[in-house]
């Protein structure tokens, strides 16, 4: 056993240095579960000294860094601790990384989403390392009775060169833990980075390839019962009654009962999205027994009319109305076409677009659509909960634990500080795990049965419970003058139940006459964030359209985009353009060079695409070849400007995955509805991309600069859909306007 020394009377680093105030360091139960990686050859120290919320140092110099954000595969559990280690000035080989539990008193933003992890952690995590280094230096200065300025560090060792004294961090950790947190620290210049910008392998890699229990589905305690829920089979239906007489007598079944996820007067929060708050819960000894009991449970559902609920918003509580009815995809398509035929809500206007279209030598108008999409993370939804009198211990996959904790607190009537959330590694998330209804369900069930409970969704539950990417419809119109100059652009975009429009993104700012409108149609089908929300459709539509306009203008598609970006950079139209034209052009120029654009071999059909989202810029060239009469993606070249790249090889891995994901979504992704019921409920009917459709080669190139890191998880995903459509056109002569492309439209 090792002893953990902490200083309970000291404010945690983060709150004291950045927020000027904040709570004491409370609740160290999470430290009890600290385990080192078994693969580590490191000798564990006899004593640990906690320097701040992000790190503790062992008396032998081993350092544990707590990774604050939930990990769903974007590698924050490696890259965020690298930021701490950089400024602490230690050798990465002596670092152990532990997932921090949800601890809002200690960490600022324990949220995974929006490609913001490294961006928002960039300053606080580096400061955590720098602060600790400063405290170690100060401890050495006091021990050696020399001025602080004369103490230097190098890879975990403190030096006083004048006297020749030196000491490892471990030797000074005890004293450093007593030093007041400095109010200011200096951070390194990028040129001095030793860890940031070098590729470091995933800290959980060995655990993952040896099948260690890392995920929510693997989280058990003694006496844990298995629970499953039964939810309405269609949007627009609710629970009417159920007959559990047969199911209750099935082997291994403990209890069957109704649960309510929301109390009647509950004001929902942003991530409480849930079409099915009234459920039947089946609880038993094992998963298979519960699955079998569920099959013989007889449940009646009933349709219902318009509903409303209160939702907390930035402007106070708002009433949200949801229509009743059983919706159909065929009706959705007709509704969207009808809405798109009328003027929408004007969001942005530059110049005189009507005049530009009247004067045009050529007008090109195209309509693009995309369906609802389920997220289908590989790990189905699940959650562990153990609720006892006045306390709740919960664990599982959550992207937004803060709002989930608030939902738990409100539902259980247990104060926030009596709810302990353990963040497990997530088997994917893609936005879906921000919506943590399953955590509340597990907790309600645990309290009812008085035991620890593991709630497990089947894949069918996971897909059909909802919170989909919305379905979208976008009309693009371009006006070209007699010189093939783009003189007008008109975008009318909408969706069910929300519009995808980004009115201030490129090509806004590059066209004199511009009109952007949007519209939406209410629905009772729940929707939520899906990797690169809205952009995941806009890029496909916009980049396909620009390709077609470039062709109509007789221009090379990269040159055409660069001309527009030059205009946006030198003489932008309007003032609200939310991109930097020079960086946008930079990735196009880089991908042009790296792909050997214009020098492709015969038989290679190329599509290009570029997009800006989540503060980063990505351009891609997709090479398609025809083999045995079939289109094959041979290679994708990808250029990314996301500022400083913290961990290059895993970042490239994520871009590779985003490219594969994007090709898969554009080719196959499709959720439709019949009488409110999702038409596909498992991976035999809902198609995900498989290995044979992945590009044979993906080259990822990063723009080198010293800009603070911007988004990485989402930006490489949207543009590849456009590159795919454009390459398909060159390979087959057919343009694809409607996702999924597999349908041939």
């Amino acid at each position: 056993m090792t002893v953990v020394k902490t200083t309970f009377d000291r404010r945690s680093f983060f709150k004291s240095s950045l927020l000027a105030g904040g709570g004491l360091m409370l609740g160290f139960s999470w430290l009890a579960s600290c385990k080192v990686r078994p693969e580590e050859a490191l000798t564990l120290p006899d004593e640990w000294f906690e320097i701040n919320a992000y790190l503790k140092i062992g008396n032998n110099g081993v350092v544990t860094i707590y990774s604050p954000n939930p990990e769903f595969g974007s590698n924050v559990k490696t890259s965020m601790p690298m930021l701490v280690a950089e400024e602490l000035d230690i050798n990465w080989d002596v670092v152990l990384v532990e997932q921090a539990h949800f601890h809002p008193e200690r960490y600022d933003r324990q949220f995974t989403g929006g490609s913001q992890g490294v961006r928002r952690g960039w300053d606080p995590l580096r400061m955590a390392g720098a602060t600790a280094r400063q405290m170690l230096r100060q401890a050495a200065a006091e021990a050696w009775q020399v001025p602080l300025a004369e103490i230097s560090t190098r890879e975990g060792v403190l030096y006083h060169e004048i006297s020749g004294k030196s000491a490892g961090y471990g030797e000074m950790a005890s004293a450093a833990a007593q030093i007041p947190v400095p109010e200011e620290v200096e951070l390194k210049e990028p040129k001095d980075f030793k860890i940031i910008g070098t590729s470091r392998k995933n800290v959980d890699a060995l655990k993952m390839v040896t099948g260690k229990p890392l995920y929510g589905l693997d989280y058990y305690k003694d006496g844990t019962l298995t629970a499953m829920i039964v939810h309405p089979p269609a949007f627009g239906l609710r629970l009417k009654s159920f007959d559990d007489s047969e199911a209750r007598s099935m082997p291994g079944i403990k209890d069957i009962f109704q649960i309510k996820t929301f109390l009647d007067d509950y004001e929902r929060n942003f991530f409480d999205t849930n079409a099915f708050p009234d459920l039947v819960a089946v609880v038993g000894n094992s998963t298979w027994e519960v699955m079998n009991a569920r099959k013989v449970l007889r449940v009646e559902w009933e349709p219902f009319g318009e509903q409303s609920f209160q939702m907390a918003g930035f402007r106070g509580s708002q009433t949200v109305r949801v229509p009743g009815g059983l919706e159909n995809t065929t009706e959705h398509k007709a509704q969207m076409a009808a809405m798109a035929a009328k003027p929408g809500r004007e969001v942005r206007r530059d110049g005189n677009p009507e005049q530009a279209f009247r004067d045009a030598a050529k007008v090109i108008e195209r309509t693009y659509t995309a369906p609802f999409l389920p997220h289908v993370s590989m790990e189905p939804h699940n959650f562990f909960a153990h609720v006892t009198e006045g306390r709740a211990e919960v664990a599982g996959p959550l992207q937004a634990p803060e709002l989930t904790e608030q939902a738990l607190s409100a539902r259980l009537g247990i104060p926030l500080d009596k709810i302990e959330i353990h963040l497990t590694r997530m088997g994917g998330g893609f936005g879906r795990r921000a919506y943590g209804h399953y955590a509340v369900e597990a907790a309600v069930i645990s309290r009812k049965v008085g035991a620890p409970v593991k709630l497990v969704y089947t894949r069918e539950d996971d897909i059909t419970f909802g919170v989909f990417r919305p379905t979208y419809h976008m009309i693009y119109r371009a006006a070209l003058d007699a010189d093939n100059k783009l003189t007008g652009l008109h975008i009318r975009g909408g969706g069910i139940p929300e519009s995808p429009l980004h009115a201030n993104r490129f090509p806004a700012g590059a066209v004199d006459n511009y009109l952007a409108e949007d519209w939406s149609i209410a629905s009772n089908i729940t929707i939520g964030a899906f990797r690169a929300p809205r952009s995941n459709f806009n890029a496909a539509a916009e980049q396909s359209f620009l390709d077609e306009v470039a062709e109509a203008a007789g221009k090379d598609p990269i040159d055409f985009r660069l001309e527009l970006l030059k205009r946006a950079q030198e003489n932008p139209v309007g003032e609200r353009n939310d991109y930097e034209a020079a960086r946008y052009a930079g990735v196009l120029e880089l991908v042009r060079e790296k792909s050997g654009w214009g020098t492709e071999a015969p038989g290679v059909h190329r599509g290009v695409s570029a997009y800006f989202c989540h503060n980063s810029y990505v351009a891609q060239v997709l090479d398609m070849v025809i083999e045995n009469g079939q289109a094959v993606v041979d290679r994708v070249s990808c250029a990314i400007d996301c500022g400083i790249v913290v961990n290059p090889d895993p970042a490239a891995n994520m871009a590779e995955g985003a490219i594969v994901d994007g090709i898969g979504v554009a080719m196959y992704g499709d959720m439709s509805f019949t009488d409110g019921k999702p038409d596909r409920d498992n991976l035999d009917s809902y198609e995900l991309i498989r290995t044979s459709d992945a590009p044979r080669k993906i080259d990822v190139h990063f723009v080198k600069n010293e800009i603070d890191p911007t988004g990485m998880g989402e930006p490489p995903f949207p543009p590849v859909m456009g590159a795919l459509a454009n390459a398909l056109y060159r390979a087959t002569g057919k343009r694809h306007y409607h996702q999924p492309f597999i349908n041939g439209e």
Partner: protein
Amino acid sequence: MAIFNLNINGKVREVDVDPSTPMLWVLRDHLRLLGTKFGCGVSVCGACTIHLGDVAVRSCQLAVSEVGDQRITTIEGLSEKGDHPVQKAWLEHDVSQCGYCQPGQIMQATALLKHNPEPTDKEIEEAMYGNLCRCGTYTRIKAAIKTAASS
């Protein structure tokens, strides 16, 4: 309920379960061998892949009563220290993102290489077709299989 003595990772393990129980849930719920993952329950995602003898099978579709005395190997039994050539290749290529599907991918790849030590790209694609990776690590998986094959 019935008692089954199963040969799992070189040890005999006794379980008392319904004979129709899929091995996936025997492993996870009754033996707490949690490396074998639940993904779809209908044998189309590959997350639950184990070896029955030397053959890769989907444990979600293999009833415990069908196993008899055949050897079962799970990801936990592939090597003692994670140093099977396929696991080492996965580490070298830093394949995993979320990592959830990777035990199944590794079990599938291991069975492939056992039967076909030098697979072509096409043979790799065919053998790995049934293993989904939602993060899209397919290109690295292929590269890792080639590395393992050459080691």
